[in-house]
């Protein structure tokens, strides 16, 4: 499966500031996915990022709050804007495994996540 690197792995941020999370994949992928895991809760899809087009956001998530860039087929960034304590979460980048791998297509590989704490 793909190898995903996320930076930063963790950060402590002040209320009102913004932070950009980077996701680097070791292979070219069409779509990249950004998930959020709030403390004690499940993972929730924020948006799907296609290269060369605007990201598609899920209900409850908006571009002004979570702008996403996808400049090429191996890289994406997610910015958490104007942060509040409610944004304290783990943010995970993921990609689909390509067809032909033992895991099969339509299986997600996840990065290690970026743990953000907003004070």
């Amino acid at each position, binding site marked *: 499966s793909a190898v995903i690197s996320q930076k930063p792995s963790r950060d402590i941020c002040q209320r009102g500031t913004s932070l950009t999370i980077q996701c680097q994949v070791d292979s070219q992928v069409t779509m990249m996915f950004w998930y959020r895991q709030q403390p004690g809760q499940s*993972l929730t899809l924020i948006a799907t990022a296609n290269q060369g087009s605007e990201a*598609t956001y899920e209900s409850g998530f908006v571009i002004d709050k979570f702008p996403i860039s996808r400049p090429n087929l191996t890289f994406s960034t997610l910015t958490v804007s104007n942060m509040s304590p409610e944004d304290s979460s783990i943010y995970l980048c*993921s*990609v*689909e495994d390509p067809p032909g791998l033992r*895991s099969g297509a*339509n*299986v*997600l590989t*996840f990065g290690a996540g970026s743990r953000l704490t907003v004070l």
Partner: protein
Amino acid sequence: AQSVSQHNHHVILSEAASLELGCNYSYGGTVNLFWYVQYPGQHLQLLLKYFSGDPLVKGIKGFEAEFIKSKFSFNLRKPSVQWSDTAEYFCAVNADSSNTGKLIFGQGTTLQVKP
């Protein structure tokens, strides 16, 4: 709205005990079903999946899961757990054929296996 429910939030077992983690989903159409596992300090990784065919699927490390369509369930089982199975387990469903990366996750179950 689609949802996934995992019945057990925290399970504690002794080694060699049998394990069954419940998972139910709310969607009447075609679904792809997954169990992911996150070992302490590691990435979330795939344990097993069901797309079609035999409803009893086998995954890594001796885990299996059974898809029962009539019950909207996809329970995870292992006949004899080991200390190394201590982890958090997530059930997930994809019900959107236009976006196969969109998974709906359950709340997760923390499994603690005592040596």
